């Protein structure tokens, strides 16, 4: 664990990997440390944002010895996201990967995913666990409007667009599952560490 300063009101902790980042994230949340405002996992880091008055040296000294959080880890049931695989880029992904459309779908829905971190827009989870054969670059020119519920891939990640937005990921299908709803608590279906499975569904 390497602890860096991110200004005078945040620490950036390098954990070396995703599993340790999620473990530290959970441990910090469970410890309810005074003065901590936000805890933001990344791919191999956890950012800890504090009140401006917090003692960063003291906080940094406590982080390595936090007790592991109870009841977290990969035991929880995965979230199931039903998908109608009729995305606009399915043919293109089949061509880029040299796999047929059916094989792209089969590989996409047979993997088990974990939310690495959220970003880009509220509720947008970057899911790791994508079959390496499905790694394709983003579109050269992003779409100006991608509908909410679009199931997409880019690079090593899979995702579901939680709300309508511009986007450059390749669209494989769509889901009716609501990923983001500000009237719900929590508003996001996904959070760092959530496990996800995609379940193919026939078009209605």
């Amino acid at each position, binding site marked *: 664990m390497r602890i*860096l*300063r*991110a*200004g*005078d*009101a*945040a620490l*950036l902790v390098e954990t070396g990997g995703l599993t340790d980042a999620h473990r530290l*994230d959970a441990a910090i949340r469970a410890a309810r440390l005074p003065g901590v*405002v*936000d*805890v*933001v*996992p*990344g*791919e*191999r*880091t*956890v*950012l800890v*944002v504090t009140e*401006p008055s917090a003692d960063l040296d003291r906080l940094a000294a406590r982080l390595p010895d936090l007790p592991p959080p109870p009841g977290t880890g990969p035991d929880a049931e995965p979230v199931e996201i039903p998908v109608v695989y009729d995305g606009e880029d399915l043919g293109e992904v089949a061509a880029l990967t040299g796999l047929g459309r059916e094989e792209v779908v089969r590989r996409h829905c047979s993997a088990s995913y974990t939310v690495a*971190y*959220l*970003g*880009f*827009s*509220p*509720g*947008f989870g*970057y899911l790791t666990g994508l079959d390496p054969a499905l790694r394709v670059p983003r579109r050269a020119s992003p779409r100006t409007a991608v509908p909410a519920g679009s199931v997409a891939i880019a690079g090593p990640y899979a995702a579901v667009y939680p*709300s309508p937005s511009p986007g450059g990921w390749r669209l494989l299908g769509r889901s009716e599952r609501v990923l983001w709803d*500000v009237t719900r608590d*929590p*508003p*996001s279906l996904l*959070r*760092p560490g959530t496990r996800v499975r995609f379940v193919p569904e026939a078009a209605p």
Partner: protein
Amino acid sequence: MIEVIRPGPLATVQDLGRPGHAHLGVPRSGAADERALRLANRLVGNPEGAACVEFTLGGATLRFDSPAWIAVTGAPAFLRVDGRGSGAHAPCHVPAGAAVELGTPPSGLRSYLAVRGGLMVGRVLGSRSTDVLSGLGPAALTSGDRLPVGGTEGLDDITVDLAPAPPLPASPVLRILPGPRDDWFGPDAITALTSTPYTVTPETNRVGIRLDGAPLARTREGELSSEGMVTGAVQVPPSGLPIVFLADHPTTGGYPVIGVLASAEVPRAAQLRPGQTVRFRLN
């Protein structure tokens, strides 16, 4: 109720934002110049985090249905209440039916108008702030919008006549702390950042300030894994031209952050307007 007659270039409702949701991809948002928002609220006896209007380069008119106490802080826009001039950084009484006009401030970018009782637009995730990046909160104000004002029972008395406000410098020098990714750059980059002036470009908004000047060269190849970002972060995209993150910045990013503004400097950065120059210093 307050009616927006004209909002100026950009007017939004802001409070202290949505801390605590960054791990879900929700920017903190809130007033870009938090210090000015807090002061405006104190001047009219509000809790410091009450919702205000954040104006960008003034140029706005509001009409008040009911009598109210207001205060304008931040960029010192000339204030006219029912045609009569009034000063910034001071509580000011507005009679029922009066128009409040805000001129273009001679310096600074963002002015805050607090009204005693606070603005009562709906909350989203605990905040009334407009987040221009994620679209959370109310839309930016447009002509004809009507803003409800809260009750004033139980508020502190208005006790201050005028708050001293230091003038905004033409070319501020902002203190920066190196890291967390200063090791992605050579010593030349930190030297360039802290010894040459940068110009604020027109592509500057509540998300961040895009700067033009000496490009900061990376010495490390490859891509940084996406990591959490803080307000005040000086992020360096492949062009080498730094971006300073403000209130609506994305929660995670993959470009290295060479340094972060000291917290106390963020409000000053939020007052930089396009075309202005800025310098950075260590310590």
